[in-house]
């Protein structure tokens, strides 16, 4: 109820104000622009290979009906044929040469009819090709890719939260010489595009022997300037008196960090966690250079490898893309409130 009243709010109390009309038009346009491609992707991922190749494309996943006719090994596609005398007949197509198709009446398999292809219309039915998804797990080592991606995302996010919050704690709650300098240096690294340091990073990973290891993807990007900045700004708002009270309460510095500062930074940590999950899950470049063996591929790399030079199995590619999108969508759906409040309170975009 409250959702509906929220969605249908208007400016005027009785009649629609012209700004309401404008507003809803604009918002609807936004919804279409934002959601149409995603919706198209989801629908397409449920199409069979043949349906994908169909032109003009359909929104819903239609496939042609087929029927097993005695005397033929394979199921034959069904057509609605307009006979010369204007009658409509359902027939199965045996073969087609040029503009002439050979059809057969399923009821009377013996008599074959030759018809101009313009005289027949395919009979379509709604058919969701769930096999696209099923096959991913059966035919390919999709499970491995998924596990690699999940492992990297979860472990890297946990490490990012831990290390960034420790750095932020020190930078926000301790007074020491060079504190500002250190902070500025960390922030300054934001100005270096990751592509520029890609080669040195690769060399280091190679030297350390982490090539083709998931840790080679996790470790280089654990400390992020954005994360340190975001958490530091938030931690500055935690009153020092709380820390002093804890110190008077005989708490060690680690305990102050773990029991006081960390729980109180939860909103900022949530934001960083969401960011980190997105970064890691969508990351392509770093895994691409670090992971070269098929069994250590992440989903993003696997997606890339599906796009072959000569042919692309679009139906699998699309299904995989949908699965790849799911976690981020879920994260957003459930943590949206935290994101907005967290971003607002952390004072960053």
């Amino acid at each position: 109820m409250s959702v509906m009243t929220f969605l249908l709010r208007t400016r005027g109390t009785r009649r629609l104000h012209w700004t309401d009309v404008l507003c809803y038009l604009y918002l609807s346009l936004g919804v279409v622009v934002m959601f149409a491609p995603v919706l198209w992707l989801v629908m397409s991922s449920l199409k069979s290979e043949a349906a994908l190749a169909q032109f003009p494309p359909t929104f819903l996943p239609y496939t042609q009906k087929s029927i097993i006719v005695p005397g033929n090994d394979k199921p034959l596609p069904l057509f609605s044929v307009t006979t010369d005398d204007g009658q409509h007949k359902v027939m199965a197509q045996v073969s087609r040469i040029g503009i002439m198709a050979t059809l057969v009446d399923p009821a009377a398999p013996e008599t074959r009819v030759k018809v101009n292809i313009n005289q027949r219309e395919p009979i379509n039915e709604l058919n969701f090709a769930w096999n696209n998804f099923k096959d991913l797990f059966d035919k390919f080592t999709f499970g491995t890719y998924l596990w690699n991606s999940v492992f990297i995302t979860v472990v890297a996010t946990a490490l990012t939260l831990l290390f960034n919050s420790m750095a932020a704690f020190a930078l926000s709650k301790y007074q020491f010489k060079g504190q500002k300098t250190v902070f500025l240096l960390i922030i300054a690294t934001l100005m270096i595009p990751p592509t520029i340091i890609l080669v040195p990073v690769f060399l280091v990973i190679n030297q350390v022997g982490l090539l083709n290891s998931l840790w080679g993807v996790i470790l280089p990007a654990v400390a992020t300037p954005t994360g340190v900045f975001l958490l530091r700004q938030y931690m500055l708002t935690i009153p020092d008196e709380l820390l002093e009270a804890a110190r008077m309460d005989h708490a060690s510095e680690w305990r102050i960090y773990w029991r006081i500062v960390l729980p109180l930074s939860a909103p900022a940590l949530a934001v960083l966690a969401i960011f980190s999950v997105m970064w890691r899950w969508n990351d392509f470049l770093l895994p691409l250079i670090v992971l070269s063996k098929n069994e250590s591929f992440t989903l993003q790399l696997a997606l890339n490898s599906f796009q072959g030079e000569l042919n692309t199995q679009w139906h699998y590619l699309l299904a995989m893309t949908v699965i790849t999108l799911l976690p981020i969508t879920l994260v957003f759906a459930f943590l949206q409130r935290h994101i907005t409040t967290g971003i607002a309170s952390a004072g960053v975009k």
Partner: protein
Amino acid sequence: MSNNITLQQQILDQQVKLVATLELRSLQKTFDRTRVIHDASLTVEHGEFVVFVGPSGCGKSTLLRLIAGLDTLTGGSVLIDGQEVNAISAADRGCAMVFQSYALYPHMTVYANMAFGLENAKVPRADIDRKVNEAATMLRLDHLLQRRPTQLSGGQRQRVAIGRAIVRNPKIFLFDEPLSNLDAELRVSMRTELRDMHHRLGATMIYVTHDQVEAMTMADKIVVLREGRIEQIGTPEALYKRPCNMFVAGFIGSPRMNLIPASALASSVAMARVLPPNTEHVGVRPEHWSLCEPGQGVSITIRASEYLGAQRLIHAELPDHTRVELLINDDIELTPGSVNAIKAEALHIHAFDANGHRIEETVA
């Protein structure tokens, strides 16, 4: 570690009466080349309730934080039980502090707030439970233990903050303006509660406030501070009766003492006390004036009268327009504009020299 153990023993053994004395030896504190505490020296006996009072920015909170060990000193030393604690961390000094903002951990329940210090000292679970419950009963918080600080009223938060200090059986309690966030009524009742608690625990307490009424009503000993210097140390009575300088004279007592330039009192004959020749200012508290026959005292012109209930606060002027205030019984009515005469007993007339220092009455 050894400190940990001694703390534990203290907590476990409640029978032992804690003896804690505090001594400050020419304490100094400088922030960025600004000196905020100049040479503060002070001795606090065991079980004393000492109040640091002074206008805002006088360094009283800083002094408290230096004692607690939250700030490092620039010079001098702090001694607790005769032992220098300059190098000992805040946690190990055996002090407990109640902050102005209470500084309760917002994400923990009342119980967890109070138990946190004991957990850190590695006190066994059962003992923590017992001590927290004892303190909660004493502070009437027992039904609130599972609440969060945000679900409590100001007075309740205040009591949790005090409870958090009590459970650790500290040697010295430090209070940093603990009542300033409460409403007037609650403040008065908390004042008596704190006094009661002090009697019950018999612990040494140091209390910082800017409110001289709080200081007067609660303290065994008041330390008046101004601009980082201790102006006077003494019992409330001593400070009231014999302020050592004009600042203390003006700060202690409400309404403020009248500080009248000696020159304004044209005829010192009118005063009951023979003023020393180097008197620059004469101080008389409003409540110590009494009306008298014209010619026997100082003549004043009434300007305004405030009705306070049992008393009236009269604003008046001396012949040379120096303002004076006097408190008189409410049954006397003085119409603005009328001319009257007032006098004060010799005992209540304070003389201050050019530097603002008190000139003691020479025993004739």
